């Protein structure tokens, strides 16, 4: 882009060739902030990950050895497993329930706006505060959840206090919290669907399920994909809820990468190793997003390929 002074431009082209002014001055302050708090930390993290860097100890450059250490760290590998299970469940359940909720909220009924506001309260509420209340509800002796189970004849559970049930229990909280976001995105998709296909389906006498399966679902697929992507990114990074309810426990049964990263960096102050975890963690999220994009592309390709 060539920059000419306004005066020169005005002289050269009096009326017709009016030049669009530069908008850079509007962006510069934000650019400074973004460089300071996003780009600089990123570059510095990469640099730290290449060093043996502990608080209070002189740092030494160690190349990729922090990354090599990751491959032989059973606690990290276990954390990756926990993260993947937690993420898979925390994407699928909200997608399923959120779509159902969106189909219902797409109907017209009195008080819809207000009830939608109530429905999205879980995701806007302060995570630590709701985590605290869920902890009380999970309590094996005094918790209300075991009481509710006893009403339908199910024996009491240990919920977050047992290694085998801690991740499903946390996923329950995550699902409760984030189903509304999926609902909102899918609801936006439903609102964008034209009415013609429904009218012709009605004339043809299609059942509710057939309409949903063959008209609604394909049309909201792009929105489901976006919702799934956002859900994946948030579920992988989930921290507040897990930290407030279990701190990764019992033992390390619910320790995800993010919680392990916290321990390494801020409990053991192993900054270099923590930075390496942060970099790998970021790459893992990017990789998961890439896999989802690839699967989506393949699905589109088979759909159009099947038609032709």
């Amino acid at each position, binding site marked *: 882009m060539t920059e000419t002074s306004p005066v020169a431009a005005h002289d050269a082209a009096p009326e017709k060739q009016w030049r669009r002014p530069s908008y850079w001055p509007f962006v510069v302050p934000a650019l400074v902030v*973004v460089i300071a*708090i996003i780009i600089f*930390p990123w570059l510095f993290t990469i640099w730290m990950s290449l060093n043996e860097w502990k608080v209070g100890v002189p740092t030494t450059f160690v190349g990729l050895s922090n990354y090599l250490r990751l491959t032989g760290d059973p606690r990290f590998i276990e954390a990756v497993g926990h993260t993947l299970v937690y993420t898979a469940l925390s994407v699928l359940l909200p997608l399923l329930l959120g779509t159902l909720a969106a189909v219902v909220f797409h109907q017209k009924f009195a008080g819809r706006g207000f009830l939608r506001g109530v429905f999205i309260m879980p995701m806007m509420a302060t995570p630590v505060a709701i985590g*605290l*209340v869920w902890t*009380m509800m999970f309590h094996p002796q*005094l918790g209300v959840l075991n009481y509710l189970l006893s009403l339908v004849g199910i024996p009491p559970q240990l919920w977050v206090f047992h290694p085998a049930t801690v991740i499903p229990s946390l996923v329950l909280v995550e699902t409760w919290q984030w189903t509304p976001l999926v609902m909102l995105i899918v609801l936006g998709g439903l609102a964008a669907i034209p009415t013609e296909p429904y009218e012709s389906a009605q004339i043809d006498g299609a059942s509710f399920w057939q309409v949903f399966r063959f008209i609604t679902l394909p049309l909201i697929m792009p929105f489901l994909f976006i919702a799934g992507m956002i859900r994946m990114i948030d579920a992988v990074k989930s921290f507040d809820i897990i930290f407030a309810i279990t701190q990764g426990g019992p033992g390390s049964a619910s320790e995800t990468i993010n919680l392990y990263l916290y321990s390494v960096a801020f409990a053991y102050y192993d900054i270099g190793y923590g*930075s390496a975890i942060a970099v790998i963690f970021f790459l893992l999220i990017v990789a998961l997003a890439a896999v989802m994009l690839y699967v989506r592309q393949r699905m589109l390709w088979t759909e159009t390929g099947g038609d032709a």
Partner: protein
Amino acid sequence: MTLRSILGRIGLWFAVLVIVSPAILFFLWMASLSLKFEIDNAAYPPVFIPEHFAWKNYTDVLASNRFLTYFVNSLVVTGCATALSLIVGVPAGYGIARMAAHKSAIVILIARITPGLSYLIPLFLLFQWLGLLGTLVPQIIIHLVVTVPIVIWIMIGYFETTPMELEEAALIDGATRWQVFRHVALPIAKPGIAVAFILAVIFSWNNFVFGIVLAGRETRTLPVAVYNMISFDQLSWGPLAAAALIVTFPVLLLTVFAQRQIVAGLTAGAVKGG
């Protein structure tokens, strides 16, 4: 009304009830916990509405002098972080939208994907080096990591939909870029700014992860203070639940009253902090 449509109505209302009840019941139970004395909270089967309300739980939390400190901390951090992000982010969203610099969105995307903890390590060292730990400044700055991308993202989307004709007319009439922004673009963008403001406030207010690392005893925000109550000071449920409800109540209120803006913001950018 035919029988079929009446049945349909009943079915719909039943479905609505099933869908909203987890949210409603949870917050009612939260309120119930916060209003019960220890005896009622330890009762089995659980008591939903107690005979005697323990308003004391609330007055105790509100009366403790620390609570006021933490409340003010939260107000200062959220207020400053939101104000700064609007000052910086609204013009940036405008500039990016007008330059059609769509590639710049990639930085926002990276910020969106990056786990909050990744920023904490380098910025923690930086704040330590600058000697800022122990003040609220580090928390205000690091909350910008969350609020600035939200504001920029929402404002790009908003300014892209506002008409250009008025702005171009004003420019041809000799207004400066700044005047055009200030007197033409900004007034039209008020609803968008409201959306950005509300979401920035909520995500900053709720933020926890930055506080647990950066906050000292005197600089805790409310979410961190509540978490510390769990681990150290309090073991009885009533006051804990009361504190939790007090912390999240402003957000819940905002959610119900500004749900149109929140829905618009979340579905437009589908952004979330943290």
